[in-house]
């Protein structure tokens, strides 16, 4: 736990990382409290007010069906970020549990898990997601499970190799000699150490999942139209892009900022976790 506090302190000192974390929390809160922040219903169609400009009533204007863009953006944060976070949690859970178990128990189970990850990882994840969505049919749930299914192998690999690395460390060996059960060692000794590395991977992965899901939604394969989601919004904006190009800006910028924040946070976490990592210093030119 002292380690956790140390990481937190290092993260606190990293201004960009901290700003990203605060920004992400704000976006998440905006999504959660969307009904309080916007008086408009994101689904309320108003055909008289189509493609309206920015007014005091509609701060970001209205879309091609006269729906308030700000409201859709806020409710969209719920769907987009919520989905990304859920995928991340599910993936990390499944992946690291399988990896930890494989690394701890070894044997047949280990080789089985590793063969499966090998096959899944021999595909680029984009292809696998597309294939899974393709087989199961377009839709939000299918996109969700497709993302989870094709990402867990990475966590399983990391968790397993960390487990194997830590298994041979002295204090784990002591715990074994002292007669603790394998499960006890796994939960009390190996899990806390592995969690840091997994946290970095998960944060960076949030960004790519968000990109993946919004890309699928954009193409009509993920979240289906009436539901507000940033990718879907961009897909709808595309229909009117010739005459109303500014419609593309709010959802696109939202995705860009959130993805950038996740990337910054991931980098900051990595630096915080590993202060002795030999960072390439700027300078020393020929």
């Amino acid at each position, binding site marked *: 736990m002292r380690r956790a506090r140390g990481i937190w302190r290092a993260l606190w000192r990293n201004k960009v990382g901290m700003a990203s974390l605060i920004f992400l929390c704000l976006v998440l809160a905006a999504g959660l409290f969307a009904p309080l922040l916007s008086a408009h219903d994101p689904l309320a169609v108003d055909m008289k007010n189509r493609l309206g400009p920015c007014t005091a009533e509609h701060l970001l204007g209205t879309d091609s069906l006269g729906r308030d863009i700000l409201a859709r953006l806020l409710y969209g944060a719920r769907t987009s970020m919520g989905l990304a976070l859920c995928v991340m949690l599910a993936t990390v859970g499944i992946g690291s549990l399988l990896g930890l178990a494989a690394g701890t128990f070894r044997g047949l189970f280990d080789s089985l898990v590793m*063969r499966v990850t*090998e*096959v*899944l990882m*021999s*595909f*680029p*994840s*984009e*292809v*696998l997601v*597309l*294939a*899974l*969505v*393709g*087989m*199961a*049919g*377009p839709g939000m749930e299918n996109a969700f499970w497709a993302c989870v299914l094709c990402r867990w192998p990475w966590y399983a690999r990391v968790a397993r190799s960390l487990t194997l690395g830590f298994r041979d460390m002295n204090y784990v060996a002591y715990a074994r000699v002292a007669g603790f059960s394998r499960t006890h060692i796994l939960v009390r000794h190996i899990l806390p150490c592995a969690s840091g590395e997994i946290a970095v991977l998960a944060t960076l992965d949030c*960004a790519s999942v968000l*990109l993946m899901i*919004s*890309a699928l939604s*954009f*193409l*009509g*394969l993920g979240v289906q139209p009436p539901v507000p989601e940033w*990718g879907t919004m*961009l897909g709808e*904006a*595309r229909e009117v*892009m*010739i005459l109303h*190009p500014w419609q*593309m800006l709010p*959802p*696109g910028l939202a*995705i*860009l*900022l959130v*993805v*950038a924040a996740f*990337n910054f946070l991931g980098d900051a976490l990595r630096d915080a976790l590993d202060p002795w990592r*030999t960072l*390439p*210093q*700027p*300078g*020393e*030119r*020929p």
Partner: protein
Amino acid sequence: MPGLVLRRLLALIPLLLAISFLAFCLAAASPSDPAEVALRVNDITPTPELIEETRHELGLDKPFWERYCVWLFRALQGDLGTSFVTHRPVTDEMLRALPPTLALAGFATLIVLGLGIPCAILCFASAGRPLDIVLRGLIFLGSATPSFWAGLLFIWLFAVHLNLLPTGGLSGGTSFILPALTLALPSLATYTRLLRASMLATAQQDFVLYAKAQGRSRLAILGQIVRNSLQSTLATLGMTIPKLLAGAFVVECVFAWPGLGRLCVTAIFNRDLPVIQAYVLFMGLCFVLFNLFMEVVAGLVDPRIGKGGRAR
């Protein structure tokens, strides 16, 4: 070297089998009955008799393993079934869509290399100065921009607003520019960032100090650093190219590019299962073979790996 390649190819056989099995399973595990799908896409109302007939026609009444073996045997001969929609052999459709996708990915790779390496060198040479900071900002922006959004913005700016380039489709050389640029953007950002970091790390190494102490020219030393950094980022570059191939589906849809990805997305909307299956198989094959290829290249380039070195 040929022996090594052969050994690695043999080792790949189980993996390739597993990939084919996965591709087959995906279709088999699909919640919708292929027979029903096959009828529906042709606007035939499925009656129980018709479904039964189609099932027999598609061989779906046979046991799972038998179906897999038949499918695999046919796939090895280049027969991946017939499309439910167009009723043409899937292999033909794939082969028709393959060249545009390959060309697009190849062009994007050229952009990644052609822009990424000079960018990284510029960053490195001006490390800590304004140029470096501006370039790094652009790189970061590039890595966070969703490619479909970037594609739309490019279309709007260059095709609609400035009317310089075509909005989409494959028609002549200029139609390559926007899709390839859009496709290359995220990889370009990632690779440039990595190469810059690698160059900074290489510059700290002893051989750079030694070359400097013996008075070699700046340019010669920069050349050594670039060579060594390219070498150490070769593996990542190897991973970039299949990623470009795979990520192409979004860009292909945005630019109405007649490639594999768009074929697959269209097939998904049409529930054209054989095409999706073929796409998975195809991409898996590409990915695995490409990894092998990169391994061989790494062995040839680096004297420390394998038997590529001239000495010994």
